[in-house]
């Protein structure tokens, strides 16, 4: 009997150690290549980035040099329009979820739909924007691209706004109401203002996410090799330009594609770190 017991204990010990080492191994197997991708992107991008990238427009095929100035301006235009659409609607939805709809069926349905909408592939958003705007207008336009990106921002902003507003303590709201402030005023200047660092970072996160989206722009903004800031014309965008250059056979265009991805990555690292800083270090400290 003791013999058998000892054997079993040994076996269990062995299984435990095997499982532990498997978990460690899989973490290494994941983290090391992923970190390698990241470092590779940064090194490759940094060696390709120069001043021309920010100041020149693309050179014709066969000539070296040139930059992505028009794509950067295009991306800024598109993202500006997207924010104009996504930020107010997203924040409004979040305010509804946190302040008015708590626990109601409508709020649960909205929350659920927002989460599901978040998972709809970006290419489908592009198709919808094409059908909604490009077809009636009969031409590709920056406007259509902006709308597609704006719609994609809404669910993320809505959910983060709700989360941040839920962190604001109730005593703050009641203090405002006790002073005779109307409810709308108390929501806007007390609750939303208290949670504003969190809400702003939520917007930044959504912004960074759509900044790298390519699929919804292919058949809405289309891309453009020249300067264009008009809402009614096709416009260049950084991720689109990366896509076009990555498929080309020219080394110099590949170099520009790497530089472009570094710019995108920097934007994303900034946004993600900011979110992490606000949610964990606690600009809202003491309120959660």
């Amino acid at each position, binding site marked *: 009997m003791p013999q058998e017991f000892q054997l079993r204990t040994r076996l269990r010990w062995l*299984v*435990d150690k*095997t*499982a*532990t080492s*498997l*978990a*460690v191994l*899989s*973490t290494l197997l*994941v983290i090391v290549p*992923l970190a390698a*991708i*990241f470092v*590779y992107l940064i090194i490759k991008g940094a060696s390709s980035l120069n001043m021309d990238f920010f100041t020149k427009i693309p050179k014709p095929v066969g000539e070296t040099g040139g930059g992505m100035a028009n794509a950067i301006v295009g991306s800024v235009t598109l993202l500006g329009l997207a924010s104009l659409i996504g930020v107010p*609607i997203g924040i*409004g*939805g979040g305010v509804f*979820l946190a302040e*008015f709809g708590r626990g109601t069926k409508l709020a649960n*349905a*909205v929350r*659920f739909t927002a*989460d*599901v*909408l978040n*998972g709809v*592939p*970006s*290419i*489908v958003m592009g*198709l*919808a924007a*094409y*059908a*909604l705007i490009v077809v009636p207008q009969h031409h590709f336009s920056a406007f259509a691209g902006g709308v597609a990106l704006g719609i994609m921002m809404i669910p993320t902003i809505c959910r983060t706004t709700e*989360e941040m507003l*839920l*962190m604001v303590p109730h005593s703050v709201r009641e203090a405002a109401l006790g002073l005779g402030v*109307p*409810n709308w005023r108390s929501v806007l200047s007390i609750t939303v203002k208290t949670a504003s660092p969190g809400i702003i970072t939520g917007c930044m996160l959504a912004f960074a*996410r759509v*900044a*790298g989206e*390519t*699929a919804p722009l*292919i*058949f809405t903004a*289309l891309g453009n090799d020249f300067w264009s800031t008009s809402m009614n014309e096709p416009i260049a965008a950084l*991720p689109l330009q*990366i*896509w076009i250059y*990555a498929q080309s056979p020219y080394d110099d265009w*590949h170099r520009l594609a790497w530089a472009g*991805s570094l710019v*995108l*990555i920097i934007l994303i*690292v900034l946004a993600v*770190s900011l979110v992490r800083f606000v949610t*964990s270090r606690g600009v809202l400290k003491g309120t959660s």
Partner: protein
Amino acid sequence: MDATVPEIRISQPQTQSEADSIPPQTPAGALAQEQSAIRRHLLGRGNSAVADGIFKALMVLCALSIFAIVALIATELVQRSQLSWHAFGFKFFYKTYIDPTTGLPSYWDPVNNYFSALPFVYGTLVSSFLSLLFAVPLAIGVAVFLTEMCPGFLRGPLAFLTELLAAIPSIIYGLWAVFVLVPLLRVYVNPALVKAFGWSGLFKDDNPTGLGYFASGVILAVMILPIISSLTREVMTAVPHSQREAVLALGATRWEMIRMGVLRNARIGIVGAVILGLGRALGETMAVTMVIGNTPQISRSLLATGSSMASVIANEFTEAVSDMHLSALMEIGLALFIVTIIVNATARLLVWAVTRGAPATQR
């Protein structure tokens, strides 16, 4: 994600029950009732009632617009895909045509005007399945390590890295795949696979480019790994500590504690996380388009080139000239929309079932 903060509001039912349990003349009960009366008065005051009503209506409108967006996408896609739906019906998703000139099976021919989505459905399924095969065991391993074994000082940076990798756009993964991953596969991995598993017929040595289902499966796995592992981590942290302590108190080893106390309690949420990862993999466009090879064919070999539903839309939409071609692509988009909605809804429900009511989890 679903961080819920305990309700601090002195809510209506609470005051009433308080008032019931305590005799009404005690100051505490009276005060509670008075508070809520003041509150009601302030909220319903004549002057601000109109402004409040407008404000609330605006916020409700913003929330409702989310429903409107989903409805709008659905109606537009249905409308634009009518042409192909009427021409091919449900056969659109499984019919095989015979090319009149070569006599070989053919599926997608804009010139002869026949369209069948079969190779794209196949490509999407194969690449997503491959990616789950690679990503799921690794992601669960990572989540187990991060929640149960990881020393505290490593947890923060590792979690941050995962978050960062989940946020990198797919175009950048695609770029990396084209210039680093595919050459690696072509030179080292694919020949080895052919040598080891060539007998099964799943790995054939007839594609010298390195592009194809296998490459897209690998890059998709890299992309969905952070998502699956961070969600798995979330549901695992939601398992109450008492469960772990109970199993440990019975003399279990650490692995037995994880298996019985944590994984078993979190399994529904983990399935939800995996399905959510699947949803991402199904709709992923740019990275797949860059490495799958974009040929409308079906082949048994995993190393062959193919095409996925999202990639064919990205590739052909701007070049499509005939109405039927556009409509067929729209129909593929509609199918993708419906499938991802179902997949995501299922996943969300499963994850909610586990994390609901759990204490707020740290990211």
